[in-house]
């Protein structure tokens, strides 16, 4: 049943950077299913911008591994979704192509950085989308827009073709309106790819099960503390109560390393980003560099003109954190903190099978509300730890506060993505029924 899908969405929330009016598809598990792809995932023949002017006009000569898999299973790639520039943000406001609006409330941000994918789902434009998650970039917009998003275990989905922001933290992951569709999409994209040396051959091939009797749900006090909107905390506690009604038990757990999680996260991700983003020099791709100028002048000029302020701020932060005389105080300490957080989760996940908490401390911000970088960084406090630990984490909608969606986050042991999917599925089936 190969064919062409006509895709002309009413994209009033600016979810897409690029749409493919005639999207070809073939036979397979996702035959004819419209899938939107975040614009930091390379698509052969379709421009891929990372929502940055520095990649204006760049058309990759190759497909990311996940795109190869999607095409093989018949999916129709219908467009590339908006995002924070290079994934650096939690609001999709730093895009060079303008902000995306939240379909649940157009005066609000959709979250980020995979805001376009989440908004396209919430607006009903597509049933499935790919996002990427470095410190919460799938789960945050899923929570803010009221859809489902899974950050897989680090090493479960190939990063080949994902334009790197912070290599040691990020994963491509599935987003959809239901847990079942998230699981279906995950079954397609989580297949071994030897081109990603950080990947393990642990394919995901799972049908979600709502039977969670006996599941031990860890509840970390740190996920309900200072900075978390009490109404959001309350909504999530109700969701945990639903799991208990389904036969799960709760155990208190603790992640003491949370106190330095965010600092460690920002040192590591900006450090890696400062290196990853240095290649955009306008020589091999992107807006042409001025070859009449001297190298350093031309290079600085093209970066200043084509990177937004947040990208330049993070590149500078990362450069500083890795520079001679400071690397020991920042980068080395961040790696130490990361190790402790990983151990905290390992310990907690001996007493519990999954860990539950809110995805975001608040509901979606108003557009333009967060202008101070640090206050925006603080919004990642509940999502970034899973990236530091490399564990799977899913966000599933669990009600509303002020009429805005709240996300329920479930984290699990490494390579137990199936278990967090099942827990989310059980919850979703129960509250939908």
């Amino acid at each position, binding site marked *: 049943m190969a064919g062409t899908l006509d895709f002309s969405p009413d994209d009033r929330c600016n979810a897409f950077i690029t749409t493919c009016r005639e999207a070809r598809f073939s036979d397979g598990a996702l035959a004819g299913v419209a899938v939107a792809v975040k614009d930091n995932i390379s698509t052969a023949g379709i421009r891929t911008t990372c929502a940055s002017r520095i990649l204006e*006009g*760049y*058309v990759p*000569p190759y497909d990311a591994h996940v795109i190869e898999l999607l095409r093989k299973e018949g999916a129709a790639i219908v467009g590339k979704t908006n995002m924070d520039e290079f994934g650096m943000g939690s609001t999709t406001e730093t895009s060079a192509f303008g902000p995306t609006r939240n379909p649940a409330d157009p005066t609000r941000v959709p979250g980020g950085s995979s805001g376009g994918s989440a908004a396209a789902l919430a607006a009903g434009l597509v049933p499935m989308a790919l996002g990427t998650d470095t410190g919460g970039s799938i789960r945050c917009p899923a929570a803010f827009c009221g859809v489902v998003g899974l950050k897989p275990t680090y090493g479960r989905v190939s990063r080949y073709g994902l334009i790197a922001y912070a290599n040691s933290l990020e994963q491509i992951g599935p987003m959809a309106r239901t847990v079942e569709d998230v699981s279906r999409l995950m079954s397609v994209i989580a297949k071994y790819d*030897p081109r990603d*040396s*950080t990947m393990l051959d642990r394919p995901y091939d799972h049908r979600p099960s709502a039977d969670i009797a006996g599941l031990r749900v860890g509840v970390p006090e740190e996920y309900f503390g200072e900075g978390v909107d009490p109404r959001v905390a309350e909504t999530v506690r109700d969701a945990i109560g639903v799991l208990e009604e389904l036969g799960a038990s709760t155990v208190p757990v603790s992640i003491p390393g949370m*106190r*330095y999680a965010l*600092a*460690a996260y*920002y*040192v590591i991700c900006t450090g890696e980003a*400062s290196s990853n983003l*240095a290649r955009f020099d*306008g*020589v*091999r*791709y*992107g*807006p*042409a*560099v001025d*070859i*009449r*100028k*001297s*190298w*350093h*002048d*031309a290079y*600085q*000029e093209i*970066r*200043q*003109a084509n*990177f937004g*302020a947040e990208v*330049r*701020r993070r*590149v*500078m*932060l990362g*450069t*500083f954190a890795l*520079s001679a005389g400071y690397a020991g*105080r*920042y980068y*080395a*300490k*961040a*790696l*130490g*903190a*990361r*190790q*402790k957080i990983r151990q905290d989760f390992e310990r907690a996940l001996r007493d519990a099978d999954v860990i539950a908490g809110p995805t975001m401390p608040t509901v979606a911000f108003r557009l333009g509300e967060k202008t101070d*970088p*640090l206050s925006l*960084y603080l919004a990642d406090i509940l999502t970034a730890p899973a990236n530091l630990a490399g564990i799977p984490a899913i966000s599933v909608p669990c009600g509303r506060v002020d009429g805005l969606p709240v996300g329920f986050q479930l984290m699990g042991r490494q390579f137990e993505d199936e278990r967090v999917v099942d827990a989310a599925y059980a919850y979703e089936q129960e509250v939908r029924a």
Partner: protein
Amino acid sequence: MVTESDIEHIAELADIGISRDEVPEFTRQFNAILEYFEVLDTVEGESAPADGITNVFREDEPRPCLPQEAVLANAGSTENGFIKTPRVM
């Protein structure tokens, strides 16, 4: 505490290019962020290897390369198969 001249030095090291009028704001934001990072001073001990996975290899077998047109397709300007670039000195 970083000063405005520190910020200019970091921008130079990062080769990122910032304009004069951005410097005060970047300095203020940097200081707020670095103050938040101070919590890392309390971290003790070194990091251990991430996990046990080592020795991931590829065999020494040639694979097809991209055609030259594809290599040059996204470049700003080319000459006889080469890509033009600003000169260093």
